[in-house]
């Protein structure tokens, strides 16, 4: 039942002015429901929350129901229904940050702000929260402060920052020296070191400007695709699908509109290569997108930038504007009639799943980041139902270089099945964390030597959805036919607790599951609880079989790649570190189930009864 307009105004708690502000935010994107992400990002920014009355106004403006707006607003971690502080600090709580002193940094923030993680100060000035990997593992502990980032945090640095912020200085001035005078690139560099440790010949060495685009303009669409197919380029996001074949399929589908989307939603914990490319090679990224557009006949492109990389937004917008000015984007690119293409930047809002191409498209369409049913695949029916090529940042850079320098040159590097070079993001227990551009086929042992990690005990290749390997298999090679990876290499030394690492990654997948399908939504929670039993010493030998069994069900029945890989931290450590599990799994001595914890079982009753059990309470002091 629709309420009377005046009723709503009263009930809503929004002033007329606030409503007008929200309406004008919607108007900026022409009240287009497909631009819901932009609307919600701006409302969250402006009001520090997206309240139910705000959702009503947005729903009315965009012609959606409130539940549709709420479905989107409640999906992304960076949106909140309760007001956040004017300065919102999001501490990265990835396992690398935990191993790099996160606890003392957290304590310092909590002390300085007099709140605990998850709270907002009573004056509404500060919020403190945890967030999963923000792509800065090579300089952990790191945090987001509103739209900026800060790295290599120490307790001392935290106290300085908070003191300055409390004194009223804006975060920009606190985190970036002479912020106002600097270019977006300088600001990014001031906040983040890119740690390029080894530049290879394709991406991080010298790159001639727009040579690939010039070649693409000369040769035309069919030859572009043939060149890519000859090069053997495979997608660099992790799955390794042949790029040329993807472009060919999109070009072959009959349609009036086609789209090129750059997947800059780099969310796999331990991966930060795209951050470096977006900072150091943004022209190459957009050049690659423009070549893709030429190849498939797209006029519109989107770069989907993960919300955690919002500090790169100004830099990327500046580069886009520059390319428009120089006729490299927009109508008649390089003077070619009919070669029209432009790119819009779509910011995400904290959702790992949006790295999955269907979910990414959903998010671009203003929907919750849920994967789409396949088939149809995006190349036939993607963004707004049109043929869409979604490529990883690195893949697009490679494509531009291949067009400029040649397919044979590229195919001559790496291995037969994995040609070219690859960016590896190395972090964890090593002397030189950072980015290494190396030919495919390099062995883990050689890489570890290069990064200064000869004492490594375990290496996680490809992030938590990849494989954790042990010393005896460090001769394995980084390539699609051995250890496939999107580029994350996380090193752990012998002092690290494998089960602690596994438990963290399972909690990550629980946090990031979209919840669409049963096995991923529920099964991962069960896996997390089961690992918790091992951590608490409550597991018995049958729990090892239980872990395998449940993992198999999740992998076999999940709808998308998240659920098909989320048990990997467990399965690969069961396989490669079996003693870690068997050492703590003990048969119970007294025939009771060790898993049954009487304390937690009676906790509810104890609270209701407001008294303690003389028989079961071990500790009366608490």
């Amino acid at each position: 039942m629709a309420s009377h307009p005046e009723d709503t105004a009263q009930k809503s708690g929004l002033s007329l002015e606030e409503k007008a502000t929200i309406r004008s935010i919607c108007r900026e994107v022409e009240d287009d429901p497909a631009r819901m992400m932009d609307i919600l990002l701006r409302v969250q920014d402006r009001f520090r929350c997206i309240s139910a009355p705000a959702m009503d106004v947005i729903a009315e403006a965009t012609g959606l129901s409130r539940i549709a707006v709420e479905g989107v607003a409640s999906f992304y971690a960076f949106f909140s229904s309760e007001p956040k502080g004017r300065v919102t600090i999001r501490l990265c709580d990835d396992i690398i940050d935990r191993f790099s002193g996160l606890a003392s940094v957290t304590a310092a923030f909590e002390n300085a702000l007099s709140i605990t993680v998850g709270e907002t100060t009573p004056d509404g000035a500060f919020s403190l929260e945890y967030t999963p990997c923000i792509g800065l593992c090579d300089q952990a502990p790191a945090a987001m402060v509103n739209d900026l980032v800060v790295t290599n945090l120490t307790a001392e640095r935290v106290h300085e920052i908070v003191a300055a912020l409390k004194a009223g200085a804006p975060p920009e001035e606190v985190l970036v020296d002479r912020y106002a005078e600097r270019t977006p690139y300088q600001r990014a560099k001031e906040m983040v070191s890119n740690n390029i440790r080894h530049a290879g010949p394709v991406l991080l060495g010298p790159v001639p400007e727009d040579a690939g685009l010039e070649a693409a303009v000369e040769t035309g669409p069919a030859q572009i695709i043939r060149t890519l197919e000859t090069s053997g380029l495979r997608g660099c996001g992790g799955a390794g699908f042949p790029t040329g074949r993807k472009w060919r399929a999109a070009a072959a589908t009959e349609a009036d509109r086609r789209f090129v989307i750059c997947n800059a939603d780099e969310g796999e914990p331990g991966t930060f290569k795209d951050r470096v490319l977006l900072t150091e090679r943004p022209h190459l990224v957009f050049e690659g997108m423009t070549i893709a557009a030429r190849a498939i006949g797209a006029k519109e492109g989107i770069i989907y930038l993960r919300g955690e990389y919002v500090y790169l937004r100004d830099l990327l917008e500046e580069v886009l504007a520059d390319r428009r000015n120089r006729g490299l984007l927009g109508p008649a690119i390089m003077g070619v009639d009919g070669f029209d293409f432009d790119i819009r930047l779509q910011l995400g809002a904290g959702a790992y799943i949006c790295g999955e191409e269907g979910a990414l498209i959903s998010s671009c369409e203003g929907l919750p980041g849920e994967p789409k049913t396949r088939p149809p695949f995006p190349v036939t029916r993607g963004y707004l139902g049109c043929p869409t090529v979604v490529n990883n940042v690195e893949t697009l850079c490679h494509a531009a270089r291949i067009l400029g320098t040649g397919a044979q040159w590229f195919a001559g590097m790496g291995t037969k099945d994995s040609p070219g070079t690859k960016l590896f993001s190395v972090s964890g227990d090593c002397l030189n964390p950072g980015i290494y551009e190396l030919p495919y086929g390099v062995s883990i042992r050689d890489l570890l030597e290069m990064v200064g990690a000869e004492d490594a005990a375990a290496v996680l290749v490809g992030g938590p959805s990849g494989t954790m390997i042990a010393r005896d298999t460090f001769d394995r090679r980084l390539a699609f036919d051995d250890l496939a990876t999107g580029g994350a290499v996380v090193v752990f030394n012998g002092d690290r607790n494998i089960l602690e690492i596994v438990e963290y990654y399972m909690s990550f997948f629980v946090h990031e599951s979209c919840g669409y399908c049963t096995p991923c939504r529920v099964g991962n929670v069960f896996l997390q609880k089961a690992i918790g039993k091992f951590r608490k010493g409550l597991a018995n030998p049958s729990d090892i079989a239980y872990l395998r069994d449940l993992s198999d069900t999740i992998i076999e029945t999940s709808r998308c790649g998240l659920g098909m890989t989320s048990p990997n931290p467990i399965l690969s450590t069961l396989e490669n570190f079996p003693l870690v599990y068997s050492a703590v799994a003990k048969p119970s001595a007294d025939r009771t189930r060790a898993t049954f914890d009487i304390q937690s079982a009676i906790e509810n009753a104890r609270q209701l009864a407001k008294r303690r059990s003389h028989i079961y309470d071990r500790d009366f002091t608490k």
Partner: protein
Amino acid sequence: MSDFSFMIDGVEIPACEGQTILEAADAAGIYIPRLCDHEGLRHQGSCRVCTVKANGRSVAACTQPAAPDILVENENAHINKLRRDLVEMLFHEGNHLCPICEASGNCELQAMAYRLDMTEPTQFPYLEPCRALDASHPDIALDTNRCISCGRCIRASQDVDGKGVFGYVGRGIHRRVSVNGDTLADTDAEVTDFAISSEVCPVGCIIRKREGFTTPIGEREFDKALIGHDIEEKRDD
């Protein structure tokens, strides 16, 4: 009229272009267990109970297009085990207390558990959520503790009733069905909506007030026959 055929567990199934595996199987009288799918509603593919192997690969039969000559495995020990795990997950995710639930006997979740031989306590932990009841509406109550997130009510309201009373909110384990307003009374839901009818909600979440126990326990649909019997009766062999 069929365009091509494929095999399910050794039986040849005629199919038309554009049909899903589950649609073709239904027409041929082969029952593939499902919970989120319901005849007349868009396919969603979220409960995954209809998981089958098509040429050895796991797919959801309700969304996977039938294709010429594919070999589909539907009923075997392995697939039944996967389905039982999924149904158990749904039981453990919510609060399903059959003896005190009005839907008992008509409940598809309960019936699926019987069909899949879920006859003993399971090894999964109970999540025991605590979700508030919504009895605000004069004719309808919602007990989402029993909701299995199948979303049938969402699609029925949107596509059949043309209303949009329900929708998903939240993410991951916190994802749940909610209503278009602060409470159900704020929405334009009516007890005569298709979305509210007994055939849409497979469990006892959507409750029509003042009509409980009109059919006694013991005389209800799945008290008399296994779930899927209506489809299997169509089989002409």
